[in-house]
């Protein structure tokens, strides 16, 4: 039962609970109109202290498609945070208005603070460079639908693995499945943080290797998960400029990839995947976007205890 729970990090749900969520997502995908009044009378609060289009629209669309309504703000200046209000106080107030809330905040651990104070289910919509569990749900659902399994996969993560919260969350979630091999492709400066290595080592029969060259490992992958080098995570603009073009996936590189490999990306992309790759049937990043909306519908329904 997920009713009343929070989703702050990927391991908040068991693999069995995830499986139920994916089954519900697939049902909604098959017959969306059957679910169009499931959340009638419920209100989702979207608290976006950091700019976002995709995640916010995905949540808002999910709630609207379930027949619910949405309140919220986007940008720190649009909230009382600009007056110096704490996250705890904001969430205590929001808990009086809404039935469920999603928060995105630039500081790591902010969603946990929110969940301890809201009194309603809270979903982490991204807390700084830390975790982004609903992107993880999206990614897992996409892998499950495209590869037919969540175990025994060789998954390459490429780009900014230091600040890429979607990478951290997905690694943590996949570590619970058997036979996952992580190939971590990044420049030295953007390698995964120590806690992510610990997540892998605690996992079920998981292995990892860290490399700097994408071409060497591309032919071995089941999944290539590309990421953007994020300007907003750098304190130093010079470092960003030096590293931003480290890895660019184009048609020529895709010739080296297995025919059944899939390319994923949490989006938005800048230039790390050339647009020419978009028409390759292995490119699944826009499929992810659609899956994301359906899995968020399933998530909202489950946390609110709707059937």
């Amino acid at each position, binding site marked *: 039962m997920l009713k009343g729970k929070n989703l702050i990090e990927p391991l908040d749900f068991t693999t069995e609970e995830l499986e139920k969520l994916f089954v519900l997502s697939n049902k909604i995908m098959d017959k969306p109109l059957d679910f169009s009044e499931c959340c009638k009378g419920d209100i989702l609060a979207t608290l976006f202290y950091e700019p976002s289009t995709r995640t916010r629209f995905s949540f808002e669309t999910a709630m609207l498609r379930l027949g619910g309504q949405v309140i919220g703000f986007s940008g720190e200046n649009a909230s009382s945070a600009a007056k110096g209000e*704490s996250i705890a106080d904001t969430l205590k107030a929001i808990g009086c208005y809404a039935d469920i809330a999603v928060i995105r905040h630039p*500081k790591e*651990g*902010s969603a*946990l*603070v929110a969940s301890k104070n809201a009194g309603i289910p809270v979903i982490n919509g991204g807390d700084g460079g830390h975790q982004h569990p609903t992107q993880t749900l999206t990614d897992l659902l996409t892998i499950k639908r495209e590869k037919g399994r969540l175990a025994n996969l060789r998954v390459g993560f490429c780009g900014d693995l230091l600040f890429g919260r979607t990478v951290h969350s997905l690694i943590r979630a996949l570590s619970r499945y058997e036979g996952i091999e992580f190939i971590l492709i990044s420049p030295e400066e953007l390698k995964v943080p120590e*806690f992510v290595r610990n997540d892998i080592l605690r996992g079920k029969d998981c292995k990892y290797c860290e490399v700097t060259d994408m071409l060497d490992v591309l032919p071995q992958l089941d999944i290539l998960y590309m990421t953007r080098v994020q300007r907003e995570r750098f304190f130093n603009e010079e470092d960003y400029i030096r590293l931003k073009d480290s890895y660019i996936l184009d048609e020529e590189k895709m010739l080296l990839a297995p025919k059944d490999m899939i390319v994923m990306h949490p989006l938005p992309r800048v230039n790390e995947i050339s647009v020419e790759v978009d028409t390759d049937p292995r490119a699944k990043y826009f499929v992810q976007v659609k899956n994301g909306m359906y899995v968020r519908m399933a998530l909202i329904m489950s946390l609110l205890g709707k059937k």
Partner: protein
Amino acid sequence: MEVNSIENGIVIDHIRAGLGRKILSYMNIESGDTVALIMNATSKKHARKDIIKIENIREFDLAALAVLDHTATVNVIKQGKIVEKINLDLPEKVVDVLRCKNPRCVTSVEPAIPQIFHLVSPETVEYRCEYCDEIIKP
């Protein structure tokens, strides 16, 4: 250097040299307490050690002491004799003892949030910030 023995109180011995002052700050010392902080004393266990002696101590945070230096030893003194030796076990969870050093952690901008850490590895004495997962060695 000679420091008088105490009649009733505690002696924290074998503190790693340099940590005595920090540990003392967690000891709920009140203005009337008799306290001795001995720094850089010679030691068989370490090359140098700090020692704290507190007369008539009421309560203190063993968890905080264990996190700061779990190799220290605590002797409870009554009527001039050691009546109890306390071994320091690393606590699984500590609140407001350690501070997260990650500038991106929510605790860096919201001072009212309690600083909560969980023990990751007793072998390496590593703690994880509850909020941002940053690993620190006290």
